[in-house]
């Protein structure tokens, strides 16, 4: 596939570029166009989440936590509805399916764009498969804490983050409890829903872009 992103991301601050680096840049761009190489590293695209007043980076994990009925699903749906065109296809994965798809429509989400998966004990595996296919712009993962805790959660999340990075997809983890502070979780954005205001509060925002 042709990619023009590296060309657009050129830094224009270099008024007199070094001939050697200029050649390398040109070579990188050429390689990127011909598909020989990934080219120079490009910055991640971000989509602004109005509800959370925070950007969501593609290829990263975003955690939205909150007790039942606190509005985390609605918050994510609003984001998906606002960026439906940019995100394209979406996968909604739950270990036990409790979502009510008709409730998605009021957020402007087109159901025909969503592949629903009820993964049971294989929810994480299903998420990896979905990300590996590289055809989804957003993956929403809703699972009980026990599904993740049976393994090494930080390693599992790291693997998920790598898959997300490769597929360039926005991955949302919906949980009831936020991941505890003090551990370097591979989460670019960590939000917690306030049940009273039904608004997300930012617990962590990664500086990586």
């Amino acid at each position, binding site marked *: *596939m*042709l990619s023009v992103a590296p060309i657009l991301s050129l830094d224009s601050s270099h008024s007199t570029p070094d001939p050697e680096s200029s050649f390398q840049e040109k070579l990188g761009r050429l390689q990127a166009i011909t598909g020989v190489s990934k080219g120079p590293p490009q910055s991640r695209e971000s989509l602004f989440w109005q509800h959370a007043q925070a950007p969501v980076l593609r290829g990263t994990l975003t955690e939205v936590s909150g*007790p*039942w*009925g*606190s*509005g*985390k*699903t*609605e918050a994510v*749906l609003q984001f998906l509805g606002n960026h439906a065109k940019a995100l*394209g*296809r979406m996968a909604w994965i739950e270990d036990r399916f*409790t*979502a*009510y*798809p*008709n*409730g*998605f*429509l*009021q957020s402007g989400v*087109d*159901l*025909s*764009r*969503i*592949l*629903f*998966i*009820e*993964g*049971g004990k*294989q929810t994480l*595996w*299903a998420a990896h*498969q*979905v990300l*590996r*296919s*590289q*055809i989804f712009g957003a993956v929403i993962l809703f699972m009980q804490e026990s599904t993740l805790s049976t393994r090494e959660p930080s390693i599992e999340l790291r693997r998920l983050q790598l898959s997300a990075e490769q597929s360039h997809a926005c991955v949302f983890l919906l949980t009831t409890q936020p991941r505890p502070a003090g551990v370097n979780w591979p989460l670019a954005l960590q939000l917690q829903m*306030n*049940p*009273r205001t*039904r608004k997300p509060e930012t617990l962590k925002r990664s500086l990586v872009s």
Partner: protein
Amino acid sequence: MSSELPRVAAIVFSDQPDERKKSELAELFFRLSPVVALRSRAPLTVFLDLRGLPITPHQFRSSFELKVQALLRRRFSSQAPAFRLGLAQNAAFAFLNAQSPSSDQVALSPELFANLLDPFATLDASILLKDRRIKEGIPLLEHLGIQTLSEFSRLPLESLSARFGKVGLNFARRIQDAQRSADFEAWPLWVPAERLIEELAFDPDRPLAARLDSLLFASKELLERLALRLRARAARASALRLKIRHDKKDQSESLLELRLVTPQSSASGMLASFRDRLSGWLQKSETDDGIATECRILGLEMEVLETAPGRGSQRDFFHRHEEQAESWDSLLARLAEKLDRKSRFQVKTIPRYLPEKSWCAQEPHLFELAAKSEATHLSVVTPHELAMRPTRLLSEPLALIHHEGWLRWPENSATPGRRQRIARWIGPERIEEGWWERSATESPIRRDYFRAICDSGPELWGYFEGPLENFQLFFLHGYFD
């Protein structure tokens, strides 16, 4: 019949095996003749053109029969199918000869007409069997004392056309042409189906280790070769078989068969589906006898067992439609293999008010991003667009006790929540439908749905049923998560 050497052999089998075995039988007889035709309808028959073969006239029938027997025994050993051999100048009479050695005494019947006119059963037999003039003509001939084939063959052709029509005339000509050679017959030649097989053989001194990564690495090469061959044929694989040859003592090879839920043509898609199967085979071998880690793999053979028509072989230069469709198919196949076919679905909304009946799962199809305009999905107005709907729905409504503004959950409930004070009720929204589905004795569904905003924040969605005095039970049906 003349004393000339027969030109056609008909080998009639008493069993009617499956399609694969039929092909296997037909292929086997290529060792005797290069011209083979197969009658797949019962009785299963293989026709061989014997012309040009080194034939010894002396005791030809018995020697040929022995040859066929030996061939079948060599291939199927003790399970060799029983057969009858017919030899004649053409296929029709060879078939007749196999069923009845003295053809002169064969009784007239509609089946006989059908078999002689169309020995290869390429036409629909029912047309001949139901021919009115043949059905009515045979009893008349019997009444006139003409009961056998030889007696019928002596009738003058001119008298047959009026009584038996075109079919009878053709039949009589066929009988009289018994001595004519196979040159006058159009044989539906049997051609073996093309087999797509790729294999890798390893040096016994440097065999492949029985590890998942090694097996996947080697399988990938085979699948890539097969993918190229499939692409050239504009086909996709729907079933594959991997034969693993190893040096295990009691068993020299293992077979792994994989039926793909959606046909695939890319090596990566097929490999992803094979990964779990190979991993399972290795684990099973280890738990069974610990052999997998010790045994050496000497060869791999990958075969495409079934194919399906593929997408266009030309790749779009500007879009990734084909790649995405391939990835989509591969993903669905992997999910169906590991989970369940019904575990991955897309949703279709149904214009009904009852929440539990307002949607259904359907088989996923690839959503073409460019094909859909914004206006299309808003064109259908469904009931849920008239009022807010929750994002979570319980599979069964849960009865909560409602008392003085409090909702109390039953003790043994697995649903989250125990006791909530309701700060505000929003509603009601009456839903009354489905009366046409219920019998006369059942009461109609009439629910007054409320959105209950709890003091602590959560928003519930449920209903009261029946008259006002029954407002002690609030049926929780979902929540606005």
